[in-house]
């Protein structure tokens, strides 16, 4: 009985640091500046500017999640079968970039993608046409993929490593083709990792305002940019909260999907 009390500070902190703050967003979202009840902040999502931003955010987040998955799954397969060294080393090379400040890493792409930048100089020397994607949605997707790719690779790699090699061997012994092993063994058994990876890429991509700000040249508005501006420059917290509530609907949906697909938390953190 006495031991349970040790968790009191934590429960208090969860209540004060998570439950109350989320309730505050709901309160601000459903009231106006004078504190009267209103749903204007919620239906404000139907204003063209806001609806467009949300649509673009969803689109870019889906694209970057798909790209991350398509890059990460073969990569995790290669890592599983490779002699690249211990698990620690593989994880190490994917984590190391994170020790460079994330804003600076994202900004470096400006330098790389810019008209006279490294990338285009490289294309030029190979006599290829230059690629001007800086300040376009394509650059934002590239930034998202770059920043969040490790979050997709590592859970999938983790899930693949847990698969018993004997199962795969047995399948081959029984005459399965490579495609069949992929479809019927590797993919289904790595679902917890895939689900976890998808959530961990989709949620930050959907809600980012930093990447779009840096690589979109400040002209492309995602829903995160609009919310950030309502809280900083425009100082309309009620509208910002209302739009956040709408955005949170999508976060909750992806969390619920994750909880269903990864019941035991296998593809999860530790």
């Amino acid at each position, binding site marked *: 009985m006495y031991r349970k009390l*040790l*968790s009191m500070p934590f429960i208090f902190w969860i209540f004060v640091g998570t439950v109350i703050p989320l309730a505050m967003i709901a309160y601000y979202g459903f009231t106006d500046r004078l504190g009267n009840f209103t749903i204007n902040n919620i239906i404000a999502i139907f204003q063209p500017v806001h609806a467009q931003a949300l649509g673009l955010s969803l689109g870019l987040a889906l694209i970057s999640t798909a790209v991350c998955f398509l890059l990460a799954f073969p990569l995790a397969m290669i890592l599983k079968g490779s002699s690249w060294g211990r698990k*620690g080393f593989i994880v190490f090379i994917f984590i190391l970039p994170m020790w460079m400040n994330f*804003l600076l890493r994202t900004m470096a792409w400006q330098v790389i993608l810019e008209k006279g930048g490294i990338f285009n100089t490289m294309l030029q020397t190979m006599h290829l046409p230059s690629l001007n994607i800086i300040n376009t949605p394509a650059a934002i997707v590239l930034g998202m993929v770059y920043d969040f790719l490790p979050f997709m690779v590592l859970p999938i790699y983790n899930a693949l490593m847990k698969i018993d090699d004997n199962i795969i061997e047995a399948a081959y012994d029984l005459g399965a083709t490579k495609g069949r092993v992929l479809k019927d063994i590797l993919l289904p058994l790595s679902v917890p990792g895939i689900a976890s990876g998808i959530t961990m890429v989709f949620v930050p991509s959907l809600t980012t305002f*930093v990447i779009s700000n840096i690589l979109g040249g400040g002209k492309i508005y995602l829903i995160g940019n609009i*919310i950030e501006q309502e809280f900083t420059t425009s100082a309309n917290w009620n509208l910002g909260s209302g739009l956040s509530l709408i955005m*949170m609907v999508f976060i909750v949906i992806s*969390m619920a999907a994750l909880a269903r697909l990864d019941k035991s938390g296998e593809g999860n953190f530790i």
Partner: protein
Amino acid sequence: MSKAIKTIYMIIIMMFLYLPIVTLMVFSFNESKSMFAWTGLSLRWYKEMFHDTQMLSAIWNTFSIAISAAAIATIIGTMACVGIIAMSKRSQTVIMGFNNIPLLNADIVTGISLMLSFIAFGFYLNWGTVLLAHITFCIPYVILSVMPKLKQLGPGNYEAALDLGATPAYAFRKVVIPEIKPGIISGFLLAFTMSVDDFVVTHFTRGAGINTISTLIYSQVKVGIRPTLFALSTVIFLVVLVILVLVNFASGKDAEEEEFFYEVAQG
């Protein structure tokens, strides 16, 4: 897939991951302030780093907040794990569900929700509010690191110590703590990393007076970043790299560090 294709694929991905970092490092040695033109090799920005008072205070804030937040989160989180494990299965599931909220939630939502609460309850946004915010998002990482170790240990050893006449406090100190220490350490390091790396939550809870390294960089994005920040980041990156390599080398086959990297990865 043939081996050659696999290797080429790996190399392309590695280039993709490390090209921006190499670019930043190279430009930290550039003589001019421009990010787009190379004018010559210089250590100018490395020297300037030590005279930039704004930057020195940002470094101080970043690391003082990270160490305090990680330490407090580690204490609260470890205590919580000991308490939670004594609860019924049902309450455990509920509490762990709440624990996952800050972890899976978007940073921007965590940031604005805390900002609104701080202001509503009359806090003045400064170093302290950033610290409180960081503790909030650090605790879940500690719990996720410590909990599995505690589950692995089971209640047996602790109960045996009690049967042999140890007081609960003594048994806890001599039996439980040594067993879960790797989890506590990796939880602390994970929390520390997350705190140093955070921008979004700090952005909303810092108020006007203080800067961390991240917010300082963000404030300069529009006007053009001074290469001193590249120099600083290069230094931090290399220091961390050296520490990680040494730790990994020293611990040899010890699985602890591998787990740490892995846990950082998952964050």
